[in-house]
């Protein structure tokens, strides 16, 4: 299967779980490439949010404290930079700060913006993967470079006791 098809399959699998929710801008409505991978998910699991990147990340953390597994969607790495506070200072530190009593399980989907056929430019296509890796201690980061990486990464993220950032590349949607 192709890269995008594997993403759709993964989201369908996650969407079948009782405790998952999918949050972000252009989740219930179209708007970016990731929106097109959410087509197989029940509509009541798609929570369209305003443009509130930091609140979105924290809101997902709060949902997870009550047992939900939120999939927090950022269509471009540059946009997720506005949510770094919640990722680095809360999701990533909560387990340590609470002596393991509070362990948020949030799956963050973030894409490196596509450069082909249209190049979004410096505010839409940067890849912060290595930088983010260095900021995180408890949260795992997984890179999706090949179609065969995709499904297992989401299954692993759903099953692990902790949060995961999954990085995908917009260019692969058409290339692989």
């Amino acid at each position: 299967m192709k890269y995008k098809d594997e993403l759709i399959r993964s989201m369908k699998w996650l969407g079948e779980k009782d405790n998952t929710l999918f949050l972000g801008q252009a989740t219930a409505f179209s708007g970016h490439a990731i929106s097109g991978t959410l087509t197989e998910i029940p509509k009541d699991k798609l929570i369209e949010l305003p443009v509130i990147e930091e609140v979105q990340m924290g809101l997902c953390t709060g949902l997870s404290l009550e047992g939900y597994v939120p999939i927090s969607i950022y269509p471009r790495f540059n946009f997720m930079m506005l949510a770094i506070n919640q990722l680095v200072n809360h999701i990533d530190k909560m387990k340590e700060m609470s002596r393991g009593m509070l362990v948020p399980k949030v799956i963050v989907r973030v894409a490196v913006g596509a450069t082909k056929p249209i190049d979004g430019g410096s505010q839409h296509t940067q890849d912060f993967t290595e930088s983010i890796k260095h900021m995180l201690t408890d949260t795992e980061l997984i890179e999706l470079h090949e179609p065969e990486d995709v499904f297992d990464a989401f299954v692993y993220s759903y099953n692990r006791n902790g949060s995961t950032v999954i990085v995908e590349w917009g260019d692969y949607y058409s290339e692989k």
Partner: protein
Amino acid sequence: MIKIPNHLEKQKEVTVTKEELISFETEVKERYESGEILAPVHLSKDNEDELIEIFQYVHPDDWVFSAWRNHYHALLHGFDRQQLMDDIVAGRSMATSSNVNKFYSSAIVGGIIPIALGTAMALKKKNSDNKVWCFIGDMTFETGVFHESYKYAKNFELPIQFVVEDNNLSVHTPTDAAWGVRQEVPEDVVYYRYENGYPHHGTGAWVNF
């Protein structure tokens, strides 16, 4: 001065006394000054009456979110006194948390607010009778993240109750001087004004570790 919105109903009688709260912070003060606590401590004093009154409205199964000055909130939400003291001595004064007591605190300004919002969303989705209490200071109240979260909570009728604890200070910065004009606190937010009997950090005494 304390403002309790009319929509709130008392849930319980608070059994923790003012004297017990003061005694707890006094013990922290003494252990800090003796060099036993090798981490920052943020102590409360002179807001005991207000918090005891507010916690009559907090159900034991509600979530409580607090910030760096959280010892009183934790005790009033059912924390075991000795466990809390042990956490503080171990260096966790700014981050007391528990899944047993449904309590999370953080030393990042405004950081708890979106998390509290998400927990409130979860409670609503579960049709729970419980709610989320989010205690913030006056400078945090002025931040953008509060206003985004407050607006979202109000628009979607999420079960979250904000409490503004106003000492007009962020560390040593007067909030009114820094902002020029203070925002008006909405009627549905619990509010009280106080002057903390301790400094922002530490006890006011020089400690040689």
